């Protein structure tokens, strides 16, 4: 405990306040429901090296990627005061193409003090299918790729980039409006940083940033030191067409956490691949969730983590691999595997597996008046049973926490009708504490639409733990107005006619502990 320790929480509150205000600015002025209703965005303050200092987070998967963005930008551009950089290339500091990131350096008295960043999921970013998240063969088919580029130069919009952006997305009005909102959030954050510098002096602000990173490192190390040093291994699979194995060997040694994903599948064709940001995010999430002390969200945590990701693998893919589904689905499986490894290490403190998917629903088409529509949402499912009781039903788990779109909003803004929104009874795995149930959503298309559902745990369900049963796998169907229902394969786009219905049944959670006799 040092003297600085008395001021760390002061900095923490003040820096968090900057990112919170950015988040408010973004949420209020964004256009698309995905951002304003589902809060699919995050805002961050980074130090002069690009390390994460404060994060107003709604989306865990954004968390592990923020610190990778600035180094990726600097490899290609040296942004100056008044510049705003935009990017979405997952292999150069992004997550997946839909997540458009804007980042701006913050200079004070001619000296670089840090960066402000925000990242928001755009409902469409071009590509072969509406929503840009369906099963393209490679990243070129997934949509517009933005390498780090100046979106504003010396505070003036670089119109060519804005026009290129608008020309490549299906709903340019919403896309441009959301991007404007993202820039407005940066401006708001910068204004607050200026105030902090005026109050404390910029040296002190820099010292506060470093202090918080060191603090995060110390907190994380003390947590890791409390765990057994045994080496444990867990393996799980992605089902469906992207079928790939994720394997993780985990060991705590001298206050460091080693995670080795050797033995995971080589990168696959299609969009199920991920890159370092996703595994990092999953590790961040699990450490936070398991920690007895609240660990502030900083890069300090990562200083205690050795992450080995085999190159050109499903967990660390290289260009031109597609990543759209990896970001939302493989990320859930990576979290599952790390948690299963921890269950081997820490035993019954850990719950059974949760639904392990985000059940990504995408559709798009043309309204009766000729205007385009595109829609994206993710659906909750069953949480695993755990030591604290039965798993919750119909809830977002692990790597996402976005809200649903209310039925009334959905029907007011899009040519669809929701016929059923229900808890999927009996889908949770049996157990001493049973898994939570998934949900069922049945949507009728009132206009022809191209539809994609990208989900996993469709063939085998969420594993139970300590004697609990597996949860029911999910199921996705296209139910035409006439004729037989068709199964919607994960990541595969199909045409729906007006009057056809999509029915999604999300997976239940795994059961925890042996079920009482006679209950199965």
């Amino acid at each position, binding site marked *: 405990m040092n003297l600085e320790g008395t001021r760390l929480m002061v900095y923490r509150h003040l820096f968090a306040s900057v990112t919170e205000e950015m988040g*408010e600015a973004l949420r*209020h002025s964004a256009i698309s429901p995905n951002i304003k209703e589902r809060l699919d965005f995050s805002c961050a303050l980074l130090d002069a090296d690009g390390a994460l200092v404060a994060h107003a987070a709604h989306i865990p998967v954004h968390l592990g990627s923020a610190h990778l963005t600035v180094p990726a930008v600097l490899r290609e551009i040296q942004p100056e005061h008044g510049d705003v950089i935009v990017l979405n290339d997952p292999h150069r500091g992004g997550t997946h193409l839909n997540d458009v990131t804007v980042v701006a350096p913050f200079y004070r008295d001619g000296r670089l003090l840090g960066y402000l960043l925000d990242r928001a999921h755009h409902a469409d970013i071009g590509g072969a299918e509406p929503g840009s998240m369906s099963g393209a063969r490679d990243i070129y088919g997934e949509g517009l790729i933005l390498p780090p580029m100046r979106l504003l130069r010396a505070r003036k919009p670089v119109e060519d980039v804005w026009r290129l952006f608008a020309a490549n997305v299906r709903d340019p009005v919403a896309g441009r409006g959301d991007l404007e909102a993202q820039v407005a959030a940066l401006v708001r954050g910068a204004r607050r940083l200026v105030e902090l510098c005026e*109050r404390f002096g910029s040296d002190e602000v820099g010292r506060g940033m470093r202090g918080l990173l060191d603090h995060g490192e110390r*907190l994380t190390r003390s947590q890791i030191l409390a765990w057994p040093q045994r080496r444990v291994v867990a393996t799980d699979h992605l089902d469906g067409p992207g079928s790939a194995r994720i394997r993780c060997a985990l060991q705590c040694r001298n206050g460091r956490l080693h995670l080795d994903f050797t033995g995971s599948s080589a990168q696959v064709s299609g969009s199920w691949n991920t890159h370092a940001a996703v595994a990092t995010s999953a590790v961040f999430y699990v450490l936070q969730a398991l920690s007895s002390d609240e660990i502030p969200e900083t890069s300090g945590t990562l200083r205690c983590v050795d992450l080995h990701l085999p190159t050109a693998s499903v967990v660390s893919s290289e260009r031109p691999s597609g990543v759209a589904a990896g970001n939302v689905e493989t990320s859930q499986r990576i979290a599952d595997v790390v948690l299963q490894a921890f269950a081997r290490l820490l035993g019954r403190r850990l719950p059974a597996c949760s639904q392990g998917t985000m059940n990504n629903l995408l559709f798009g088409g043309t309204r009766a008046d000729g205007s385009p529509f595109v829609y994206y949402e993710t659906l909750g499912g069953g949480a695993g049973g755990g030591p604290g009781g039965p798993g919750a039903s119909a809830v977002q788990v692990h790597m996402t*926490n976005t809200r649903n779109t209310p039925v009334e909003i959905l029907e007011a803004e899009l040519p669809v009708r929701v016929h059923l929104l229900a808890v999927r009874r009996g889908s949770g795995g049996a157990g001493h504490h049973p898994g939570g149930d998934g949900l069922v959503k049945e949507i009728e298309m009132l206009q022809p639409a191209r539809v994609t559902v990208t989900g996993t745990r469709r063939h085998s369900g969420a594993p139970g733990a300590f004697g609990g049963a597996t949860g029911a796998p999910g199921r996705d169907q296209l139910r035409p107005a006439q004729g037989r229902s068709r199964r919607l394969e994960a990541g595969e786009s199909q045409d729906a006619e007006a009057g056809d219905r999509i029915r999604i049944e999300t997976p239940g959670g795994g059961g925890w502990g042996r079920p009482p006799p006679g209950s199965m």
Partner: protein
Amino acid sequence: MSDQTRNLRRVGIDTGGTFTDAVTADAGSGFHVHKVPTTQEQPARAVLQALEILVPSSAAVELVHGTTHATNALLTGRLGRTVVVTTKGMRDVLAIGRQDRDSLYQLEPRPPRPPQPRRLIVEVDERLDADGGVITRLTAAEIKRVVAKVAALKPQAIAIGLLHSYRNDAHEQRLARALARLKVPCVLSSALVPEIREYERLTTAWADAALAPVVAPALEQLEQSLQSGWAAGSRLRVLRSDGGTAAAAAAATHPVHLALSGPAGGLAAARSLADARGDGAVLTLDMGGTSTDVALLPAGEMPLQPMSLGGLPLLARGLPIHSVGTGGGSLVRWDAGGALAVGPASAGAVPGPVCYGRGGSQVTVTDAHLVAGRLRSEAFLGGEFSLDPEAAHAALAALGKPAGLRAEEAAAAVLEIASADMERALRRVSLAEGHDPRAFHLYAFGGAGGLHAAWVAARLGMRGVVIPPHAGAFSALGMLAAPPRRTLIRSILEVLPAARQRRAWFRPLEERACAELTAEGVPRSHLRLRRLLEMHSSGQSGCFALADGPRLLERFHLEHQRRFGYRREDQPVMVASLRLVAEGRAQALWPRHRCRRHQAASRVVQDCVFPESAGAGNARAGNTRAGNAGAAPRLRAAVHARADLKAGARLRGPALVTEYSGTTVVPPAWGAEIDAYGALVLQPEEKQ
């Protein structure tokens, strides 16, 4: 006012967690305040006890009550047996909610949802589209089936929430007419909160229905006690979450409006004092034992927004109160990463802070204040309760030891963290809404508000601090200050039309509000109507309310620019909903005293640590050492008893002003003055 109203003795009574506060106002002699311990099991007992002391039974009394009854019933789930009626296919809307968990890092999420058993939810075969058009007709046979099914479930109350009923309420109305024969309270989501978003609307209707069987009898009983114990004409009014009052019967009919009845009192009082002082927009800080409530009150219109209680969204409008976890009882510790951390765990009232001597051993914010010399141990709660400075000193010395800090230095560090948390909260409520706090005063009340107020106000660059008279019973004062009010909402979802169309939209709301208030005895000539439109730019969700009137479109664009930094004139401006506020006259509560400016004298001094004027917070003073808590100056502060300070009394910091309910710290380079309304006003010398 009518003769009948004039003869009533008005009393404001607020039921708090520890004390029940009662206040009467008297034009000649000012306020009379009486505190009695709250009777947890039967809150009405303490209310009547306090009332007996302030008002003789020969008088007729109008009691304005701030009740925690609805709040507690919702938080504990002690509710009436309620049947929910909803559209076919939507039975699980309450169970699914918005599908998010209440915090991110949860391996075992337990998201808060209305505790409504599924077997008490009945689906009805009907369907509207998003424009209110009928897709599936509600047939007479279906109504009959639903009524039979609901009747068989033996409800104490019914909530009806059908999809898109905010657009077209015909189906809800027909069901309600048929269900009326069950003779239980029946709440229509389309009548209560006609707004888009089925989960939030249905949750609100459910809460309203489920509260009725528990809240209505309690209010009825209290009013009967008034009528039997005091003179004829005695009556009960209740403060609602919107900061206005309603007659007991009306309050009992829609108890969801009472969800924030208690906290609304402090804000109603703050607004009323701010109006008297001519302060315009103000921020409020109410620091209690376990948490601190902050709010922004703009000039003029009370800001109302949908509420949240225990994680449940309620669309009924309430005053915007934001809570943070730091209060006087917040526990202090070193975390495993070597950072000094305050809260969120609290010592509560038992064992409480170390200095209470009730077995608490872990340092709290209150202990830090005591060690820093910012509390008078013998003056705490009027001296009824003595503090143990030695125990607090020992605990802070032990806390500081690992970092080489003396007890006072450790105390200064603790107070700095607590203030940063409050600063963050005040920023969130002001800047996030596009307001700049530098133009405002900070109104601080509650037990510990005055200890941090000047400090936080300085950090936010605010104009000054106002510590109202009777800051410890301020909520009860708010009960007296609050006017009779009705806030009615109607969903619109259309492009902003011309003034004539807007007037037509408002008319039915005006008629209803006027009828309700005149039925409560509010003279029609006293009624003031305010018409607000909650608007947003097409496609955006950031909604804000503007008063109807000339140049509305231009005012919208100006407000959009102020909040979001740009104008969005290429998109249509949408009206989300109308808000009609009708209110009667408020009691003139703040008599102006004659102010004779004079310097207050004090012979009592106390050594006091002022971290607010130290450390890195003042970079220009050349302090470069991080965490330089040792630099907090220890100064001799004059101690003033507030009761001795008359209007016009001035004093300079460093000083402490003590009163029954708390202590106000006047830091160095700040001055303070008692204004014509009895408020203690603090300002930095540079702004005086």
